[in-house]
């Protein structure tokens, strides 16, 4: 009986894994700003491309 219960648990869990793992994670998981950034942000633009803006406090220096 014990073996049947744990065997069923293994089969059902594997089925759930293969079904669910192919689904994209929820927006709560993906759309947050404290995610781990392992590969860098490919969409980020850098200052050298000239797309950043001057910060306001710079005006004080003039």
């Amino acid at each position, binding site marked *: 009986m014990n073996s049947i219960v744990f065997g069923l648990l*293994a089969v059902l869990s594997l089925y759930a894994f293969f079904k669910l793992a*192919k689904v994209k994670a929820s*927006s709560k998981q*993906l759309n947050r700003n404290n995610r781990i950034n392992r590969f860098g942000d490919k969409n980020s633009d850098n200052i050298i491309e000239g797309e950043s803006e001057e910060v306001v406090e710079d005006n004080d220096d003039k």
Partner: protein
Amino acid sequence: MSKHAAINRFGRSANPAFTKNFTSSFDSIPISERMTLDGAVNKTGILLGLCFAGAFVGWNIPVLAIPSAIIGLILALVTIFRSPSKAGSTAPLYALVQGIFLGGITLMFESQFDGIAIQAIGLTFGILASLLVCYKSGLILPTENFRLMLGAAIGGIMILYLINFVMSFFGSTLSFLTSNSLMSIGFSFAIIAVASFTLVLDFDFIEEGAEKGMPKYMEWYGAFSLMVTLIWLYLEILRLLAKIRSR
């Protein structure tokens, strides 16, 4: 003075390390050669299949367990530190030899505690599925601090394993790792918790890799990292069940 004064004075850098094309070099990879969730999951299935096949061999020829463990360790180190891009060839081999090791070690436990193998398998896959649900639903949100804490915990556990391994040559062991005392059982629970949360990092690695269009070989690497954690989790569950049943 403007914060962009250096750029205004000297112009833009020609250093390729600072150009947009370099930072987003993965954009140049054709879509068909990018990592996908489906691909990583299918490869995890292949590795699990190979692991079960290896376990069948190890169960029937248990003398192969120790050589397989050593070969598996070497393959894991090669995959992690030398050539993640070759994970497509090293990961299946790793799964196969680790399967042989697990088959042999499981037979050893099973001969002492009847039915322990199926309990450990059921609990391992149960934890895998439930943590996947927690991750996909956003119930557990891995952050950089989460990763650092897990890294520190895994490092501490590995040092303890190493000390225990060295001590075993002198006929002694760390009792809270190996005995069946309540403290040892509690410690096993803590290790299983760390191994389980490591699965969340593996899910996040695969999700992020697919999202950012990493190269195809990262599917194998993601599946490999999931296998490493699953094998560790299975062994710890096996040890915990053995400790509980030997009391």
